[in-house]
């Protein structure tokens, strides 16, 4: 409601709506009353004109934890109650309005407290600017579950509204080793005293395979302490990605001057080199040496095994291979994220991270090439030292699977079938789904996408069930449509559509039914029949991950 200044009415009518009596009780975790809690009633307000101001919709609980109010209109479409108190977290449960009306509404609050502390060095001097993180009981993982603060000039820190539970507190500061402390947060908890120790230097030199220093290597801590038994740690938890980073100097060196005594996991990364992840390091009298090899490069050709012609489009995937002695070999999985797509029969590969991270010896490599209409091909196992090798793949054409689609009749107009090739695969491999559409002579359907004008394009949809196992790896492809004088683009006769799918990494072994639908409109020269949806189904066997 708004009036120009010269048109303010001398009289105004204010209409009060009948109100309802609402009440409830606020308790703590043990059912005891919470006095002095602020209870705000939220209900619909007019978008314009007189309304109830927010400050008039609040009441406080009495010593028995009870509250009541008489200002909510009887016809309110909803009523929400917000309860706040400095020593408690707000309850999240909704309370039915009937319980508010009959006074049985209960709001159970969860206690929160301030967690205070002070950080000092090993001489007892306050450490200002120290970063303090409050994780969950077992770990600190940067993010919303781990609030952070910084100590003031007197080394003090404070976290507000902390629930009563065990939390892992981490402290890091320049000139001191980091500290982890398990804190059981409870009422009347005395301020924590965190005394940092100096730690000891962790000296590392990063060299290439010729022993020459590498300058500018990015070094970061992934985890401290490392998991047992490597760390032999008695610490109460683990700090992930704590933000400790260095860069090697011209001699390939860096020093973590105040490293803690426990083993930490570090990652070393520089462009052009194969990174090393999760390297276990701890302070010692000497200097640790980390060797980075060049990034893994390979190249090659992919040819049709029959014609010798370059395969126009193909995928190269990689997996790690580990020799485990006694003739045992461990093959990695064909993971989706290692796939690379190429065209024109040529490929070049570069991997700047190992396919298997960790402190083990560098693994060997194997590659797999997949292309529509061809059987996949595997490379030999390449030793890690064979970086830069050229590989030649000759893919054997694969005949199209038999779909057994009967010839259509003038009465049937269209017949369809579906098949998947190969019929059994492992996660990370690909399959091609074929859909065959046979049209009776004189009939046509429209192209997959650009059907011309307002004609109904043919579409093939993978069902949700299929998409739980397979992920599309190419568009649907089909025969080239005929452009007609009326600008429509038509398909006639025997048609085969195909699409490549990737078997998802998490697909469990087993037999899967794969439903699809084909949506098309059949026409002849004179008329079009209503669009129809044809349901199809095939099956696929997913095998376990072993090769």
């Amino acid at each position, binding site marked *: 409601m708004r009036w120009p200044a010269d048109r303010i009415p001398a009289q*105004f009518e*204010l209409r009060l709506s009948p109100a309802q009596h609402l009440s409830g009780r606020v308790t703590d975790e043990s059912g005891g009353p919470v006095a002095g809690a602020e209870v705000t009633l939220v209900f619909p307000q007019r978008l314009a004109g007189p309304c109830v101001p927010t400050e008039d919709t609040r009441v406080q609980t009495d010593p028995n934890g009870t509250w009541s109010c008489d200002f909510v209109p009887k016809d309110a479409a909803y009523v929400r109650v917000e309860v706040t108190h400095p020593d408690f977290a707000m309850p999240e449960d909704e309370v039915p309005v009937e319980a508010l009306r009959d006074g049985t509404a209960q709001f159970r609050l969860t206690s929160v407290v301030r967690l205070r502390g002070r950080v000092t060095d090993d001489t007892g001097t306050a450490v200002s600017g120290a970063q303090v993180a409050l994780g969950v009981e077992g770990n600190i993982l940067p993010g919303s579950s781990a609030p952070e603060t910084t100590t003031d000039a007197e080394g003090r820190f404070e976290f507000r509204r902390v629930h009563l539970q065990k939390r892992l507190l981490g402290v890091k500061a320049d000139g001191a080793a980091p500290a982890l402390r398990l804190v059981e947060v409870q009422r009347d908890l005395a301020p924590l005293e965190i005394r940092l120790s100096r730690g000891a230097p962790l000296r590392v030199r990063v060299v290439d395979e010729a022993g020459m220093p590498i300058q500018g290597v990015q070094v970061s801590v992934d985890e401290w302490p490392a998991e047992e038994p490597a760390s032999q740690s008695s610490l109460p938890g683990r700090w992930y990605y704590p933000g400790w980073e260095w860069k090697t100097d011209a001699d390939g060196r860096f020093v973590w001057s105040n490293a803690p005594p426990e083993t930490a996991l570090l990652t070393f990364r520089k462009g052009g080199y194969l990174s090393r992840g999760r390297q276990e390091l701890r302070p010692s009298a000497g200097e640790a040496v980390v060797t980075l090899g060049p990034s893994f490069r390979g190249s090659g050709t992919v040819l049709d095994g029959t014609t010798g012609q370059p395969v126009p489009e193909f995928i190269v995937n990689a997996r790690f291979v580990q020799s485990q002695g006694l003739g045992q070999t461990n093959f990695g999985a064909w993971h989706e994220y290692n796939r690379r797509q190429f065209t024109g029969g040529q490929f070049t590969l570069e991997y700047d991270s190992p396919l298997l991270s960790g402190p083990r010896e560098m693994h060997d490599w194997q590659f797999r090439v997949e292309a529509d209409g061809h059987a996949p091909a595997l490379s030999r196992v390449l030793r890690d030292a064979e970086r830069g090798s050229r590989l030649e793949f000759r893919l054997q054409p694969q005949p199209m699977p038999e779909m057994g689609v009967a010839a259509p009749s003038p009465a049937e107009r269209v017949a369809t079938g579906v098949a998947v090739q190969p019929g059994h695969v492992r996660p990370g491999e690909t399959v091609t789904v074929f859909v065959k559409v046979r049209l009776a002579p004189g009939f046509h359907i429209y192209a997959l996408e650009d059907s011309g004008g307002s004609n109904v394009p043919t579409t093939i949809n993978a069902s949700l069930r299929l998409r739980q196992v397979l992920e599309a790896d190419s568009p649907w492809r089909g025969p080239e449509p005929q452009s007609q004088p009326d600008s429509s683009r038509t398909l006639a006769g025997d048609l085969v559509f195909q699409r490549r799918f990737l078997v998802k990494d998490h697909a469990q072994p087993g037999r899967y039914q794969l439903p699809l639908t084909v949506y098309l409109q059949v026409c002849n020269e004179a008329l079009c029949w209503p669009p129809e949806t044809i349901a199809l189904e095939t099956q696929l066997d997913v095998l376990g991950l072993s090769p």
Partner: protein
Amino acid sequence: MPDAVGSGVLLLGLGLDTGEALELRILDAAKAKPLAGANVVWRTDEGDKSEVAVDAQGRVGIPVPEGAPRALRVTARKVGFAP
């Protein structure tokens, strides 16, 4: 001061001259009848506050306070009714 604004319950940017009165009438919204026995509180944005009871016809005159305040908040209350 070009505008007057109505809000919670009724907030008026005053264009009236000092000494004039705004006549307010309080009604039962459900019955559209005057609501006797209601109390009206008005506060200026400077913090001045006054309270008066409405008459049997639900009427009350609110004098514009001295000093021509920018706005006046008017709240009407009666037991059993939302303000």
